[in-house]
């Protein structure tokens, strides 16, 4: 109990750190994931191949390895002086984007064939069909998997703490290094994560019920 009260500032800092790294990489993953999903369903072979390679490689690589690449290769070879936050965001965002891409792609597949055919017979182009007809309808079936992807992202963000970002894992590590009872720290940290993950699943449930349409 005392661990929490005595170190409230650290816990708050860690909580906010987890929130911000999660939010930032969720935004990156969403944008990248939708773009790559667009690549994967497009009629252009090089982009399709790129999308497939992206998803296959990233889904089968441990996130910790991506963090190693982000922190040991990127600053030395490509962009020196990048902040740890941006590096962690890049690793988490790219990793998660492959899952987002697959969710969006399977969402697109749930849209009945007739919808796209009707759009095409009205003379819509690929982009118009995708943007106006297919994606809005795909959104609904994409939301449940998206919720679990973002919950996973929240939990994966703990690895950022091992790579010098201030967030909840980092805080628990600092406090246990100072010799506080690990059991209590674990309990409070677990509670913090429960709050975040329940908030995310609640938010998505709300979205789901708002966007529900009869089909």
């Amino acid at each position, binding site marked *: 109990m005392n661990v929490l009260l005595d170190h409230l500032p650290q816990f708050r800092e860690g909580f906010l750190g987890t929130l911000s790294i999660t939010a930032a990489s969720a935004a990156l993953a969403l944008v990248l994931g939708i773009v790559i999903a667009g690549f994967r*369903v497009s*009629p*252009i*072979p*090089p982009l399709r191949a*790129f999308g497939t390679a992206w998803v*296959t*490689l990233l889904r*089968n*690589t*441990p*996130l*910790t*390895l991506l963090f*190693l*690449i982000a922190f*040991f*290769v990127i600053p*030395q*070879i*490509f962009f020196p002086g990048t902040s740890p936050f941006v590096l962690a965001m890049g690793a988490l965002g790219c990793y998660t984007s492959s*899952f987002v*891409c*697959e*969710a969006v792609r*399977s969402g697109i597949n749930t849209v009945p*064939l007739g919808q*796209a055919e009707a759009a*095409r017979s009205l003379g819509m182009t*690929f982009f118009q*069909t995708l943007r106006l007809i297919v994606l809005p309808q795909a959104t609904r079936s994409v939301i*449940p*998997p998206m*919720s*679990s*992807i973002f*919950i*996973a992202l*929240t*939990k*994966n*963000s*703990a*690895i950022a*703490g*091992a790579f010098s970002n201030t967030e*909840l*894992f980092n805080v*628990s*590590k600092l406090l*246990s290094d100072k010799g506080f009872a*690990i*059991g209590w720290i*674990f309990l409070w*940290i*677990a509670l913090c*994560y*429960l709050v975040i*993950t329940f908030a995310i*699943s609640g938010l998505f449930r709300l979205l789901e019920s708002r966007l529900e349409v009869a089909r």
Partner: protein
Amino acid sequence: MSSSVLYDAPGPKARIRNRIYSVVGGLAVLGLIVFAVVRLNDKGQFAPEMWDIFNYAGVRTSIRDGVVTTLKVFAVAAVLSLVLGVLLAVGRLSDHKAVRWFATGFIELFRAVPLLITIYVLWVLFLTYRSDLGLSGDNTGFWALVIGLTVYNGSVQAEVLRAGINSVPRGQSEAAYALGMRKTQVMMTVLVPQAVRAMLPTIISQLVVTLKDTSLGYVITYQELLFQLQQLAGNIVVNDDNPYVPVIIVGGAIYIAMCLALSALATWIERRGRRAKTGIRVADAGQPLAAADALDVVDHSAVSAPDAPTGKTN
């Protein structure tokens, strides 16, 4: 060109346009690759000496040791998590309130907490009480990793199995009860085997996650593959530089090969399961959801599975 929901077989105009896009897109992708290669080359990461390190026996041995340790952790954790998964799934469906609540609480807690934190906390606990537990040296890291992976993946597998058990047609258990079987018998001889069969692809996809997550041992300095790779790259100096890129390319290829092999197994089993006329609906191996590490997902399949066509079994 494959037919798709989104576009017709292209006509002459579209074919020309697609060809132009292909060239432009191809050039863009190529440009990215060239940029990376040129930059890596400038930094001397493609120098032959950098790649020569893999000719040394010591380097090979430590990579091999890393692979063996990773596989060892994976094997123990996979078996234990499956056992725990069955126990928790059965516990969650138990008629006794206390058992049900305990299983639910356990699953919810360990699914919500990042695996890294679970592993780290176990590691600190094991280090603190090392003498009482009779652990020594490397064992603390090993058991922290194995037990962490077990409780997390066991919780996830429990949810997968629960969804599977719920998707077994009701007639199955009704028939079993009508034959005079006891509750335990119905569960263990009728429901669990069918659930496992239906969910095998998802279970294996989750095992891929387990395999990837063994790399978290890196954070608690356990000597698995990723840690070995990092040590190698950090300790060897070639041309005044650390060979991070060659080591990561080789290590990444090993990880990807291991995971793809497991995924291929899942797809194969899924196809076999579809072919068999047992009436058990086999889950989708390619489900991105199943491969994502969270798996709230499984709750959805629990909801949706009963409406799905279940074949001729009932």
